[in-house]
């Protein structure tokens, strides 16, 4: 049995109520971590998630409302939180939204919103959390990117560009903070069965998935396991600045 050594580690997950986010939340809970579950609107999904894990783990989930469009409020929430829990060991930037629309039909507001929610929000939130990690000289950040950061992207031009920026942010930040004991990595999911990818799926040739080496869409738990691996100091202490593609070979 592999020892991930995540017991009692404190993990902040944004978008913890989303398709992939809730799988990541569940995976960390099952490893004994304390999960600060960031959500924007729908807390009911977190209640559903609670019903899927043993009662003994319920006390290990701390919901926190984080509207990433209001970073000032996030800062207040996080400062309050950190004063209570002392430290955040792992940050998983999972929140994001993809809006499918031809580029030329998108207005400026929609373009701004895509950059804001998929790039600037995780960047700014990382800055808020990093200070605490820097003081401890220890920490791990996992950004949820996408294979569209380097492949595909029709109908989601700005979303895919923002994800490419997340990949670059991952690498540049890893360079800057590695000496301080902080690792930064990204996971790039392919076609995962969630609401968001169902929408992306419409924009890819239907035979593409069948032609990929593993001829099925991925499941959220398969992304969660990749995140656990990168978040575990025991498993990946020498890995930083990487973008781990988890797509069943779709992008080969």
């Amino acid at each position, binding site marked *: 049995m592999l020892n991930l050594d995540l017991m009692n580690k404190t993990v902040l997950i944004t978008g913890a109520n989303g398709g992939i986010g809730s799988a990541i939340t569940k995976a960390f809970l099952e490893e004994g971590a304390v999960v600060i579950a960031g959500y924007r609107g729908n807390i009911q999904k977190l209640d559903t998630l609670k019903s899927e894990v043993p009662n003994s783990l319920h006390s290990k989930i701390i919901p926190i409302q984080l509207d990433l469009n209001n970073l000032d409020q996030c800062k207040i929430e996080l400062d309050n939180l950190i004063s209570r829990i002392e430290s955040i060991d792992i940050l998983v930037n999972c929140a994001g939204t993809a809006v499918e629309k031809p580029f030329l039909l998108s207005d400026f507001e929609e373009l701004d919103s895509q950059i804001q929610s998929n790039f600037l929000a995780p960047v700014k939130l990382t800055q808020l959390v990093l200070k605490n990690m820097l*003081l401890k000289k220890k920490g791990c950040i996992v950004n949820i990117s996408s294979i569209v950061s380097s492949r595909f992207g029709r109908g989601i031009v700005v979303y895919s560009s923002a994800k490419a920026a997340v990949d670059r942010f991952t690498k540049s930040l890893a360079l800057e903070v590695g000496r301080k004991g902080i690792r930064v990595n990204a996971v790039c999911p392919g076609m995962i069965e969630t609401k968001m990818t169902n929408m992306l799926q419409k924009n890819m040739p239907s035979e593409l998935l069948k032609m990929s080496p593993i001829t099925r869409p991925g499941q959220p738990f398969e992304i969660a396991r990749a995140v656990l691996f990168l978040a575990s100091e025991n498993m990946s202490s020498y890995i930083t600045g990487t973008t781990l593609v988890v797509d069943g070979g779709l992008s080969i």
Partner: protein
Amino acid sequence: MTDKQILQTIQEVINQSSGLPLTEIHPNSTLFDKLAIDSIDMVDILFNLERKYDIELKISEIEQYSKDELGDEPFEIDQIITEKGLEVLRKRMPEIPSEKLTLGITIHDIIRLITVQSLANMVAVQLEKKKN
């Protein structure tokens, strides 16, 4: 807390953050040029001092204080610090040799002039503010 104690604490924090031996961290050493401290070390040092003393430290405040003191007079023109601006800096940063504060230096050069002693002075100012 005496100025000497503050200076000693700063030397220790720099040592812990950058790994430089204490014997190389002199009061008049410039942080960036002489000690070759990079930006992430600098952030680390400032955060540690903020936590140790429960104060807020911002390098940009040196420029802001100087601007406030000058009032309507310009501190810089096209990023080059004016004679009046230099006068204020000389008063505010007496630890910097005056030959380094001469006409022609830009606002971006200020950060390169900061010494270990400058940092100690900044901490002392903030501690005084906190007391009041």
